[in-house]
């Protein structure tokens, strides 16, 4: 049985359909990425799986416990790292973990050992006695990761774990996530809109747009489905028909002055392609990314409607509505 399972999971806030029916089966030990622009329903989906947001309809389970009927058991089996920092800044790093351990009923006999082990894992042992308000953004994130895993949950949810961090800290944070997931064989479900990072870290990816999963596969398969490498040639009059008739070309797309040709093993065919096109201005060859997958599926760039550091409007609406309840 899958460790995370959802069927037709839906959430509407008033007239806004934040999540329009999601089916997922995520296996134990998997690192699963939920990708999509802000407002796509990522945070709401995670909120439902963590029992913070009540589903409008459909069902879901974590480690066999129903998210609507057995919220306490679900909560015990999940760890959460929120998009916005939620550390108690008037407590020290160690005290934050201690509070968490007490709330989750971790027995006193192992409490101390588990806390020290987690602090070690995220390299915060030296600063564990300092108030967390003195921590840097990266350190806070690490402590939150440690906190999320402290009670040894079956599933760890990470909502935009690297948002607002500088690139170097982002890379290190991913290292920690991978290390921690491997250690306890923890299933990780994360959301991000950094496509490259998701590609590098996730076993499988679900692309979510406007409240629906529109693609679900391994990053490699998704990228392969685009038909290999992309050769972008800027030229005034490319002979589109001639290019299209080449046996190894899988797709040809005209983009203003640039023709984008997809093919496997582009480096072997580049010379022939260029010999067909007159007056070449420039040539670029690149591996496709998940962003290309997203563009192909939705016709939009994921970054178009992405704002750094900001929650999407559906997420904002979600927060507003939860308050009002």
């Amino acid at each position, binding site marked *: 049985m899958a460790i995370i399972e959802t069927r037709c999971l839906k959430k509407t806030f008033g007239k806004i359909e934040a999540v329009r029916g999601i089916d997922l089966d995520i296996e134990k030990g998997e690192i699963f990425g939920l990708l999509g622009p802000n407002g796509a329903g990522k945070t709401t989906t995670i909120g439902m799986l963590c029992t913070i947001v009540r589903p409008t309809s459909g069902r879901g389970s974590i480690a066999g416990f129903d998210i609507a009927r057995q919220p306490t058991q679900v909560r015990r089996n999940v760890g*959460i790292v929120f998009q916005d920092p939620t550390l108690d800044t008037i407590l020290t790093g160690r*005290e934050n973990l201690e*509070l*968490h351990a*007490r709330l989750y009923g971790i027995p006193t006999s192992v409490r101390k050992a588990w806390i020290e082990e987690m602090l070690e894992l995220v390299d915060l042992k030296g600063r564990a006695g300092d108030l967390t308000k003195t921590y840097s953004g990266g350190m806070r994130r690490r402590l939150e990761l440690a906190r999320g895993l402290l009670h040894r949950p079956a599933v760890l949810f990470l909502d935009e774990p690297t948002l607002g961090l500088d690139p170097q800290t982002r890379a290190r944070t991913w290292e920690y996530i991978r290390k921690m997931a491997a250690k306890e064989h923890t299933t990780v479900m994360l959301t991000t809109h950094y496509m490259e990072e998701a590609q590098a870290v996730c076993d499988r990816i679900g692309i979510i747009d406007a409240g629906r999963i529109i693609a679900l596969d391994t990053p490699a398969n998704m990228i392969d489905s685009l038909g290999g490498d992309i050769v972008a040639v800027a030229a005034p009059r490319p002979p589109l028909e001639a290019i299209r008739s080449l046996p190894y070309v899988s797709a040809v797309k005209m983009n203003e002055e640039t023709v984008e040709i997809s093919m496997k093993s582009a480096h072997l065919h580049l010379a022939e392609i260029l010999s067909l096109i007159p007056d070449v201005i420039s040539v670029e060859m690149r591996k496709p990314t998940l962003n290309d997958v997203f563009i192909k599926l939705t016709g939009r760039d994921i970054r178009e409607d992405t704002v750094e550091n900001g929650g999407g409007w559906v997420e904002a609406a979600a927060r507003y509505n939860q308050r009002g309840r």
Partner: protein
Amino acid sequence: MRQLLLKEFMGISAVWWREFKVFRREKSRILASFVQPMMWLFLFGSGVGASLSVGSINYRDYIYPGILTMSVIFGSVFFGLYIIWDRKLDVLKAVLVAPVTRISIFFGKVLGGCTDVIMQVAILFMFSFLFPAVNPWGIPQAVLILMVTSIALVAVGLSLGSLMESLEGFQVISAFVVFPLFFLSGALFPVDDRLPSWLGSLVKINPLSYTVDGVRGALLGVSIAPFYVNLGVVTLFAAVMLVAGSILFSRMK
């Protein structure tokens, strides 16, 4: 079932533990909570006491029970209201997703607030020897009724705090809840038929008047109602506020 209760108890004590840690860290708050009542007693009480006594008791000594109650009122309500701030900073978010019921978190907060306030009051009790009219043997009784009062008022603060979205409501609560509760408790004057009748009636419906009367009876030996009546009224008030508070807190956010 027993397992479940144990887990909830651990949740309550976890929140309690946190509040206690925070309390010990905020030394300036402890100092302020001591200095302000002392100013009331010595700068206000001694001033008025120079020309006024109530019965045979000097005015400054007479308001000692009232000022203790004042400390409890301000400390408790503001402690409860503080959750608006916690919510704004998302400090509460991580606590609210723990496998602990909201009611346990609420009770943990109430106990935490009550502990803070009673520790503040304990400092004031240590100086009771400066007030000749105060009978030290009455202190345990006084602490008991102040403790129950504090529980009730932390619940009031948490209830109001869970209803409010922003800190702007703070001033409103201060002006329309906290100060009236204090002034109408008879903390600064004796409650008898010399009071204008409208004022007398308002004092009688204020549950905190019973706290002041109870503490006065315990420490000064003068009271209107017997101690068990005062304690009974205050306990009932606390029970009502705990129920109301648990409901509002569970619905919050």
